[in-house]
């Protein structure tokens, strides 16, 4: 039984011994050239579009941020001009009591 089995296994293991290589498809070259010419267009298109879309989105976002920032700074500067009155030097001098020319003050 074992010798019969071993013999069969040996035969199976050696069954590829005289195998001949087979020829591939004779039109392989034509098919490869066709695939190569097809691969150029679809391979590049999504990549370019992806970048175009992302750059345009980035540009739009930056433009919006600029516009919003510009409008914001305009409104805050107009508020400042409304609330703050122009202060001249005389007012400051009188407010802080700096009218005297005497720089030396006597101690109490």
């Amino acid at each position, binding site marked *: 039984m074992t010798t019969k*089995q071993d013999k069969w*296994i040996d*035969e199976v293991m050696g*069954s*590829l*011994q005289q195998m001949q290589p*087979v020829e591939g498809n004779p039109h392989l070259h034509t098919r*490869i050239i066709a695939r190569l010419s097809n691969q150029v267009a679809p391979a590049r298109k999504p990549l370019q579009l992806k970048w175009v879309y992302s750059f345009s989105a980035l540009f739009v976002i930056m433009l919006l941020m600029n516009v919003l920032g510009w409008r914001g700074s305009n409104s805050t500067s107009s508020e400042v001009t409304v609330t703050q009155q122009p202060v001249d030097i005389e007012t400051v001098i009188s407010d802080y009591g700096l009218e005297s020319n005497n720089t030396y003050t006597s101690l109490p």
Partner: protein
Amino acid sequence: MLSFRDNEQAFRDFINQHQQRVYNTALNTLQNEQDAEEITQDVFIEAFNKAHTFKGEAQVSTWLYRITLNKCIDHIRSKKRKKRFAFLTQLFHDSGEPISDAGDFVHPGVVAENKEKAAYLYKAIDQLPENQKIAFLLSETEGLSYAEISEITGSSVSSIESLLFRARKNLRKILADFYKNNTR
């Protein structure tokens, strides 16, 4: 450095020179003629696109064997993945594409009187771990030396020897099971 751009005739010659080797390696590994043809095309397309990366450190045939085997391994893995999720894909997307097993494949170049036995051997080879399968096929069907296999796979010669030893041992075990099941 290789380059086939703007030189269609050189590329045609390159295909003619290596087509048989690439196709037979793919056929023995994938055990399916359609898949082997598809992979052969993929291999030459990659060779065309990446010809500039070939620096001539190894032989062109070694470089092509590497591309072929990598593509075959990827193909087998994706088929296994498909098989694993066959139930889900059938539920959601029935593409009509058969998720085939390696059936009773026999390489067309096998001698007529050995065909039946070779079918058992291919079935057993299909059950081997990936690295053992590759080493065994390169040795048995391509007739490559240990040194050549080690250059292709990037493993040492001693590890190739051990891989082949384990591959043969495992094959004998699998074939013994086949024999027992058939004689019952």
